[in-house]
């Protein structure tokens, strides 16, 4: 039994369409929706919150909530720009849900939120003068005060100073555990996804491309499209590995060894020509052509003092089968 289930969800807003969105989210899970800007990630969150008319089926705890209005869905929403109510103070923002529904242990919850989120000093302030981080904490407190079962976070780190990102990521995980939430977090940042997510859905052009456990998705993309999106390099045909199938594989540039001599004891070894070599802070970027294909290799400066050989000369590269990712 899944906690939240999206089954063939569709939604049309202007010229944009969400198509056949299906995935399940388990209770207590931290689920990240990863995709480029304009992929439809926020629209998925808004559809879960009931803010758009959708097709397909949305169920929560096995109850069909497809047509349930947002005010009865028990979801908390934190937008990228926090969407605090300018006509209300920090405290009034947090207590907003209390005007419209009964909040269990409201007083204790407010005290806990104020203390845990460090809002004591700003509780009576107006919201327009708060910093980005303060606004985010108020928006999170406001959402949690309504005692939601699901917390929806729309790009929560994009409006935050990069210096504080690591701290905020840890903080988001702490909130998720402390308030026993099921969290859906939308981002375009792989680092955020890999640090926070139990599971990931990759969304592109209004469609879910892949869903799975974080490591599985980030290390084994299901298609060329996802591999390219995830920044996989060296996407090449399996014929190079001696396979008869017309599939693709990818090999991490860090997993490719280079040598002047043909002395590499790897599963796959190729002789190529060095096309370009660029020295970056701690490594060299080598572009090596092997027949009609080109390999991109990262060679650490602590392993090689220079570009191994001069541009245009012969070079040997090799890698192990265990490092190959088949697409």
């Amino acid at each position, binding site marked *: 039994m899944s906690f939240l289930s999206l089954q063939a969800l569709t939604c049309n807003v202007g010229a944009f369409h969400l198509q056949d969105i299906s995935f399940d989210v388990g209770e207590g899970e931290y689920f990240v929706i990863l995709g480029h800007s304009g992929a439809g990630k926020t629209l998925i969150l*808004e559809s879960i*919150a*009931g*803010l758009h008319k959708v097709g397909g089926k949305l169920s929560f705890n096995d109850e069909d909530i497809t047509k349930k*209005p*947002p*005010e009865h*869905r028990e*979801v*908390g*929403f934190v*937008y990228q*720009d926090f*969407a605090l*109510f*300018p*006509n209300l103070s920090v405290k009034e923002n947090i207590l*907003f*849900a209390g*005007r*419209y*529904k009964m909040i269990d242990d409201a007083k204790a919850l407010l005290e806990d939120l104020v203390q845990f989120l460090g809002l004591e000093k700003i509780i009576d302030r*107006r919201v327009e003068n708060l910093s980005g981080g303060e606004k985010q904490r108020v928006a999170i407190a*406001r*959402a949690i005060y*309504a005692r*939601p079962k699901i917390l929806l976070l729309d790009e929560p780190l994009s409006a935050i100073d990069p210096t504080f990102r690591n701290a905020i990521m840890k903080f988001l995980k702490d909130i998720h555990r402390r308030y026993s939430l099921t969290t859906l977090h939308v981002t375009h940042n792989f680092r955020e996804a890999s640090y926070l997510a139990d599971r990931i859905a990759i969304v592109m052009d209004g469609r879910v491309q892949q869903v799975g456990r974080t490591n599985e998705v980030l290390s084994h993309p299901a298609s060329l499209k996802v591999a390219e999106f995830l920044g996989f390099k060296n996407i090449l045909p399996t014929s190079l590995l001696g396979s008869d199938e017309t599939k693709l594989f990818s090999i991490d540039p860090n997993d490719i060894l280079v040598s002047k001599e043909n002395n590499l004891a790897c599963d796959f070894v190729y002789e190529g020509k060095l096309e370009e070599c660029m020295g970056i802070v701690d490594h060299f970027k080598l572009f090596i052509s092997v027949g009609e294909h080109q390999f991109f290799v990262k060679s650490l400066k602590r392993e090689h003092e220079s570009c191994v050989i001069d541009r245009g000369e012969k070079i040997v590269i090799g890698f192990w089968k265990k490092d190959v990712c088949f697409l």
Partner: protein
Amino acid sequence: MRNWFTALLGLLGLVMLLFLTMPLFKMLVGNDVATLVQTLGEADVSASVILTMKVSLFSTLFALATGLPLAYLIARHEFFGRSFVETLIDIPIMIPHTAAGIALLVAFGHGSLGGFFDALGIKFIGTEAGIMIAMMFLSATFLINGAKEGFKKVDIKLEKVARTLGASPLKVFFAISIPNAKKEIVNGCLMMWGRGLGEFGAVIILVYHPMTAPVLIYDRFTSFGLSYSAPVAAVMIILSIMVFLSVRFVNNRLR
């Protein structure tokens, strides 16, 4: 170069500013306080000023109740014919006021619509209701457009978040949309109310008696001349400015 250009802008702007303020200034300094107080004490003057203020206020309140929902609909929803509806709202301020008065007379004075209101005991010729529709027809546009711009400025995400926090659409409208658009709404009301105060052309076609202040000023001017009508005009200008400035002052202090 820049200083020269700024000076030119200032000079031309000053011409316009003087043009706009001189007649009012002349009006205010041209009548001594004693005359103004005495004028306000005259029964027909005070009655017409109160009538004008009151009916203009009522027409603003009526437009608030019906125009605000319309403004919200236009600001928030894409629907077929939206720009046509916006044009319809703008038309009344484009047409001559006397023509508008005639149109109102034709629509509400006789015929089925007039008959319908007649059956409800509401007459528009020679009544306060007639003054009200004349004022409303020519000034509701200011309120609707002001409110529309106000609602457009309210980030729709505020309303969406409020829904997820338990508020129904109606509650969101009152708790979030209106309070965050209130400056533009109040300014729109003020514009409508002020414009209603000065309505003459349409009012005079529908209602000569009871006299609103602009009709009284016109009546005194044509019957007795400038010296008899100027103090009434000055009283009206002072009262309008006072109300206008105080509401705007309060509105600017609203958070």
